[in-house]
């Protein structure tokens, strides 16, 4: 599926958060979004996923989701959003129960995503008994369970140690190679963005606008672990924003 | 021949014994009625249940509710039950020990004192105002305390929170004997031939089912006669008293074993009007009082209240 954003703006009260965002997210592309804290990344993602509606502009989805996809536009939330009254397993089962799947089928899916996120052992724990990273992995497992055609990820690896996040990042890449899903990926880790993105969208400080879009043409499979030049480039873009923001604060 | 079925509302008081006797001894059956006794906790719901048609016949004191329901064309009085008569042991005027100690010795001392009632418009209210009238002061000059239940009034009297009350003799005597309060007079001295309770039914039964109503009254009167003979006039000896007391105990003071209950039942027995005669003069007097107190509409008439075609009236 393909997503097209045209002149999307969003205001909260009298706070303009997003200002005329134009963005194409092509089928099978992973678009990474980076930008200063509070610039509107999560808001943009909520708009794309249809959880909020834009004040002006339009967001359109093109194409049909592939067969076997249970929820075309799927989220991984920044604050996990686990139901405290459901165990790990049941939290994942939640998103499958509305679909006509056999119990066996459902259990297979749950087992597979738990294994991929290394949570098998904790399948019957309550969320309050999990560490921060484990909660985030449950969120990821839940999203993978519905086999999404567009995956909307809000800092999905932020609470994870570097090893686990490395493993899950590789997992995501593997998954993408197999299924070629479309994805919007918010991160504050530039090397992550460069590793997995076809496009890196750099947003300006609030009101969020698109400052630059960097296309990365190397095949994802062929990328080096680190691409220092590109990282430096993005880093400088963002630093300018940060400095400008600081100056604004000092003057106003 | 075909039996008519009726529901008879009763309170679990000795004064309803006529119904218990008629039922237990089969007098209703003899009159061609399949009767069912429906016990109530209070008189007011019984009157309303007759209006709603849930029960057919009942016995209670004349109250504002009764008059109002009669005015709405729901019920009719068809006979009398308990009556006060001069010379016969009747309701007593009681004062609390505290009031007695502070000098209340006769009814005329009640001016400015408080008097216990169940509710505004109840028979206690009527008695209090009649006592005041006869003693020559206005009923506004005694402060009336509605306390809802007899039990509550007893408590308030014993603890001296109200000064006076009037009540049936067996309760009054028991209180007097136990030192809880003092008897200072008889209600009968203030109200002539007070018709305390009446037999009543729905207007529909009274006007459209005359045969049924007559049969009921006949059976009930038989119960009244037996009760008066055995319990009041003691014409049939101790064993009859014992067996009738046992019969009544099926309905009254059931939560106490027979031995404890028998005394209370016998002490609480009061004469019922033979043949269900009705003191119409007293009823009229009461109706006028209700009107004067603005408890019922001024348009209320005795014709709507009483159907005089069933029993002797005087």
């Amino acid at each position, binding site marked *: 599926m393909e997503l097209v954003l045209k002149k999307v703006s969003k205001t909260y009260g009298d706070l303009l958060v997003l200002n005329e965002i134009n963005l194409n997210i092509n089928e099978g592309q992973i678009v990474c979004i980076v930008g200063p804290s509070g610039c509107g990344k999560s808001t943009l993602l909520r708009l794309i996923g249809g959880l909020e509606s834009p004040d002006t502009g*339009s967001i359109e989805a093109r*194409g049909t989701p592939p067969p076997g996809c249970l929820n075309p536009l799927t989220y991984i939330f920044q604050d996990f959003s686990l139901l405290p009254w459901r165990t790990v397993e049941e939290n994942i089962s939640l998103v499958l129960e509305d679909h006509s799947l056999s119990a066996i089928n459902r259990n297979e899916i749950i087992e597979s995503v738990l294994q991929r996120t290394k949570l098998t052992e904790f399948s019957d724990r309550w969320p309050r008994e999990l560490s921060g990273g484990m909660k985030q992995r449950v969120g990821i497992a839940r999203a993978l369970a519905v086999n999404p055609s567009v995956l909307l990820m809000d800092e999905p690896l932020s609470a994870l140690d570097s090893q686990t996040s490395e493993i899950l990042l590789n997992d995501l890449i593997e998954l993408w190679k197999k299924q070629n899903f479309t994805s919007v990926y918010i991160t504050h880790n530039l090397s992550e963005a460069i590793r997995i993105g076809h496009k890196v969208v750099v947003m300006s400080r609030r009101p969020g606008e698109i400052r630059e879009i960097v296309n990365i043409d190397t095949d994802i499979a062929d990328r080096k672990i680190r691409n220092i030049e590109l990282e430096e480039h993005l880093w400088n873009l963002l630093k300018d924003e940060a400095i400008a923001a600081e100056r604004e604060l000092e003057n106003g | 021949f075909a039996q008519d079925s009726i529901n008879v509302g009763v309170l679990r008081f000795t004064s309803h014994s006529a119904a218990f006797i008629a039922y237990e001894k089969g007098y209703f059956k003899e009159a061609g009625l399949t009767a069912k006794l429906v016990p109530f906790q209070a008189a007011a719901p019984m009157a309303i249940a007759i209006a709603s048609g849930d029960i057919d016949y009942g016995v209670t004191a004349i*109250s504002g509710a009764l008059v109002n329901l009669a005015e709405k064309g729901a019920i009719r009085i068809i006979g009398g039950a308990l009556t006060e008569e001069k010379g016969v042991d009747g309701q007593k005027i009681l004062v609390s020990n505290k009031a007695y100690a502070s000098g209340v010795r006769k009814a005329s001392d009640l001016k400015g004192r408080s008097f216990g009632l169940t509710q505004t418009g109840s028979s206690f209210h009527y008695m209090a105002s009649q006592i005041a009238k006869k003693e020559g002061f206005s009923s506004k000059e005694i402060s009336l305390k509605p306390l809802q239940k007899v039990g509550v009034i007893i*408590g308030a009297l014993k603890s001296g*929170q109200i000064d006076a009350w009037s009540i049936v003799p067996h309760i009054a005597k028991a209180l007097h004997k136990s030192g809880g309060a003092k008897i200072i007079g008889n209600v009968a001295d203030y109200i002539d031939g007070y018709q305390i309770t009446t037999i009543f039914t729905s207007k529909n039964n009274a006007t459209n089912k005359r045969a049924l109503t007559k049969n009921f009254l006949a059976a009930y009167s038989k119960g009244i006669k037996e009760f008066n003979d055995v319990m009041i006039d003691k014409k049939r000896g101790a064993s009859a008293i014992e067996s009738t007391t046992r019969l009544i105990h099926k309905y009254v003071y059931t939560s106490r074993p027979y031995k404890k209950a028998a005394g209370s039942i016998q002490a609480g027995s009061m004469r019922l009007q033979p043949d269900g005669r009705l003191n119409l003069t007293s009823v009229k007097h009461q109706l006028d009082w209700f009107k004067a107190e603005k408890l019922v509409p001024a348009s209320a008439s005795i014709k709507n209240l009483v159907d005089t075609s069933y029993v002797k009236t005087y």
Partner: protein
Amino acid sequence: MGKKKYDYKPVPFRGSGFQFKNNYWISPVVFIIFLILWHVGTTIGFISNLVLPKPAEVLIAFHDLYVTGDLYLHVGASLKRLILGWTLGTFFGIILGFSIGLFSLVRAGLAPIVAAIFPVPKIALLPLFIIWFGIGELSKVNIILFGTLFPTIIAVYGAIDNVDRSLIRMGQSFNLSWFSITRKIVFPASLPAILSNFRITAAIAIILIVAAELIAAEKGIGAYVQMAGSLFAIDRLLAGIIILSCLGLIANWLIGFAEKKLLKWRNL
């Protein structure tokens, strides 16, 4: 999920519902429809005069109340008892509820007693209330006090049980005093449930005014209603009930107002 390959469609908005919109016009409309049905039903005799009085009769009862000046006396007397009883009951209820919610020892000792005394019907206790508290204002206020006390206790400690423990840990990590944690974390966290309970206890208090004014009350809406009931004067009965109802609505509106002010941090 059509079969066509290149359909262009806007992303559907999924975040609707479960949100609170104001439709102020509805409740007056419902109310007026109800009034009309009532009037027509009683006028054509579909509803018997035993079941409900005509609206006009109720109006006359109101008029009588107003003309004689009794309205003011009745409402005034009841309001005084209601406000005093409810305030005291709520005050002690919150204190006891917090004690049970915060101290294991108190909970063990008091919670069963509360559970045992709460279901005791205050009307049944009227005889004892009179002995204990007399027939003056005290026993009337006490009936309302006890009636609101117990539900408040239970609601408050239920709310405290439901406070997010991680916020309390946060307070402890900053060495906030026990009192600060209680006041600044436990209390605000349980406030929504406590306010929601106020709706219930306010209604209970109004219900109990009738029971309270069974005792030797000369004035008061409860006494008025009670007298109307015992006389089967259903026009006056309904007039009294409508007054109680209005008191309930006013209380409800006040609580709604307090909720708006005190809970503005919630995202309704």
